[in-house]
């Protein structure tokens, strides 16, 4: 099922690109964090795809395990990032990550 694998890998690449776009282009902290979330999950998709299509993992469901770990780590990072965004909001009354000031 080469077509299936290629499809999902392309989807993963596209999702990663979307995430990178959000991270670079948007100014709001919330949207940048959404971008990082997309990037995490894009990686998870790739793992799951490779595990499913039998590229020789130690365990048949190793990819799913990685996906769970990556997802949980993503949520943890989101939590901490959002807390920092809240602090930024308290300081500047706006969620814009002011890239112009470094």
């Amino acid at each position, binding site marked *: 099922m080469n077509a299936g694998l290629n499809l*999902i890998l392309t989807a993963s*690449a596209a999702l990663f690109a979307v995430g990178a776009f*959000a991270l670079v282009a948007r100014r709001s902290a*919330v949207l940048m964090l959404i971008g990082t979330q997309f990037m995490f999950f894009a990686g998870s998709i790739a793992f799951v795809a490779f595990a499913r299509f*039998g*590229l020789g993992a130690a365990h048949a469901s190793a990819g799913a395990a990685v996906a769970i*770990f990556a997802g*949980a780590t993503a949520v943890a990072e*989101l939590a901490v990032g959002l807390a920092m965004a809240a602090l930024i909001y308290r300081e500047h009354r706006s969620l814009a990550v002011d890239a112009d000031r470094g």
Partner: protein
Amino acid sequence: MILIYAVVVLMLLTAVTSVVVRNTLWAIGSFASSMALLALLYLTIAPFLLFAAQLLVFTTVSSALLFGLLRQTTGLESSQEPFSREWIIGSAVAAALLALLVVVVATTSWPVRATENAAAGFGATLTNMYVVSLAVLVVILASAALGTGLLLAAPRGSMKSPAPRPKGTRR
């Protein structure tokens, strides 16, 4: 097969929507639907547990966190963001990454063999083979939760630390 195509396309569409709309609230909404569609994708190619985890835990938790932050800070009224020059640079970067990855995917012939969906015993595998990673993950999650709480609580100083009561010496 067509189902997978549809799910993938929808997921990418919603993802693009979420990073392109200017209203932050709608962005979060389409992020949530994108994650839900991702869960559907997992349903077809991954153990059921992963679909369930993705849907029930990751999607809801991250959406709740984002939503909560929005409510706490700018409020739920629509907040617009102007179209800025960085979008062009961003699209260029995204396009470069996409090109790189697509080239890799297209030019490599993966030695695939279709395996059955190894759903059985996934939970057992998770706790037996990956128990160390699970433990590390628990630590990470706990620290994240603690750190988040501390970050948010710090400036207000509303945490009352327990102090010794002067009259606790009854026999």
